[in-house]
């Protein structure tokens, strides 16, 4: 499925200054029973957002009126654990288009890139700077410039470069997905398969 194009995103951000946020927190397993990709945003961070009686936990950043925006900023080692793409779907469906952290788990990073959510990896120092500036002013805007591969704190002008390989960058800029690419080389794959025993 082709996805939204990503170019430059300017938005306020929601901070989650917790390390090792795993995919079971992002979307608990009991919400993985759907057969279509709908409604996952409702259960994003379900057990951190809601008490067991389904009332809101007021101290969780997603429930804090000060914080909103299309960018989620998480602590080191974001997205560890299960391969469930549902975690990336939940992040997207809630309204985020970019996740910022100082370190991402591999599969979660791939899953994000495959659905058009941009994972932006910063240094630990820059991540702390972002947390600090949002803490003092929750309206702080971050600018994610994919063509230039920079993340900038609008109010201070502080910025950092981030990495993305040029193939994935083109895909993100144009909203292409890998299957489009693979379908175009299917003859070549077919030839390869002939020489590969079952």
């Amino acid at each position, binding site marked *: 499925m082709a996805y939204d194009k990503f170019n430059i995103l300017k938005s306020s951000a929601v901070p989650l200054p917790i*390390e090792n946020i795993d995919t*079971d927190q992002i979307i608990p397993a009991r919400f993985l029973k759907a057969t279509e990709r709908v409604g996952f945003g409702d259960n994003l961070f379900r*057990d951190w957002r809601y008490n067991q009686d389904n009332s809101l936990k007021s101290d969780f950043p997603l429930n804090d009126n000060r914080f909103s925006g299309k960018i989620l900023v998480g602590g080191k080692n974001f997205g560890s654990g299960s391969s469930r793409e549902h975690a990336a779907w939940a992040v997207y469906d809630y309204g985020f288009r970019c996740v910022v952290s100082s370190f991402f788990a591999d599969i979660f990073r791939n899953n994000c890139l495959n659905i058009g959510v941009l994972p932006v990896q910063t240094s630990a120092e820059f991540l702390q700077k972002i947390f600090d500036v949002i803490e003092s002013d929750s309206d702080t805007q971050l600018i994610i410039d994919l063509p230039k591969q920079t993340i900038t704190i609008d109010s201070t002008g502080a910025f950092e470069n981030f990495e993305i390989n*040029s193939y*994935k960058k083109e895909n993100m800029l144009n909203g292409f997905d890998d299957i489009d690419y693979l*379908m175009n*080389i299917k003859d070549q794959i077919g030839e390869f398969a002939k020489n590969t025993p079952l």
Partner: protein
Amino acid sequence: MSKTLFDKVWDSHVVQQIEDGPDVLFIDRHLVHEVTSPVAFLGLKNRGVKVMSPKRTFATADHNTPTINQHLPVADPLSANQLKALEENAKAHGISYWGLGHEKNGIVHVVGPEYGITQPGATIVCGDSHTSTHGAFGAIAFGIGTSEVEMVLSTQCIMQPKPKTMRINVNGSLSKGVTSKDVALFIISQLSTSGATGYFVEYAGEVFQSLSMEGRMTVCNLSIEMGARGGIIAPDEKTFEYIKDREFTPKGAAWDKAMNYWSTLSTDEDATFDKEYTFDGSAIEPMITYGTNPGMGMRISGGIPTAESLDGGVATYKKSLDYMGYKEGDSMIGKKIDFVFLGSCTNGRIEDFRAFTEIVEGKKKADHVTAWLVPGSHKVLNAIKEEGLLDTLQAAGFELREPGCSACLAMNDDKIPAGKYAVSTSNRNFEGRQGPGSRTLLASPTVAAAAAVMGVVTDPRSLV
């Protein structure tokens, strides 16, 4: 040029290299289960595409299945719907499907090796992070997301940047009472849950060579818990002996041809790795986790580390101990537990049930402990009965359930209640992993058995 085992297998499967981009990697075996596949099949439908290689694709139901009364219709309508979707998708695309009640049904990473689907030198993927299990046979096996499941269904390929290589050597021999699970939990406690992110790990050294295939599967299974995409162990006589004559392994001349290839599957002597660690096997003790990620493990006789001893992350660490209801410096021995879970793709094989039974034989399950013993497959279940383990377990007050992923991820009804402590042989102790509010202590089947009969965390070495 000298190559690592990982490089040999990876390079031979590259269909195309994209400059400053991923490799197009050909996939020999694709394992499919009910939870991460429906949206991928929907994608195929929307594109008007059929599965490219049904013969390379195998489907089983495991994550979302009940572990009692499997002969009855599945009560939860959402679960039933997901199982029905897989059955219909498998049928529509000509994929063999081992659904609920099928004699070959079981956890995808248990049945793959049991039927010889898993072979040395193969590339194997599945929409499940514990696909790394199959690396025990010298295969490159790793978990993928649903978009990638769709890629493999439609083109038998996946686009992946080539990971860096790491070798972890564990030399010497293990002490009595120390298992493959302890080795894995020890390594993860040393490297942390992100220590191998970006790497594919080869396990080498005497300890892994001396492990059974089941033990090697446990180690490779847990590779993802230190962030690695996968783990791999060079195939040897033990590997070939295990897979010979299984349903999907080559026979006759095809076997001989395969053996020619498989015998080349080891790391060249002067090949180098991007990172290398070496540990002494004899220094490893039975392990248990005390926190909310698999890196928070300690030797069972030790004390919970203090926040001061950590390199940063103090707030997250304190939040974790708070969730567990434990304090820095606490001893784990003697902590009261409520549940024991024996099973999962990590420790749901026959050897795990043998180890558990050996400890509980002649003893009784503690009255206040609820124990869920869930075989990884029907084949394991049958072996438990045939070997007489079931009689011993029943005499000690234990019951067996039917195969499935069960309380490992608690998608079905097998949920640990909020606030309760479970010693689990599974792979993740994340907050709420085994049910909202549940508290998980990861350990080996041996440690789980000791806890089940004593009702508190117990060093299994004190019972034998």
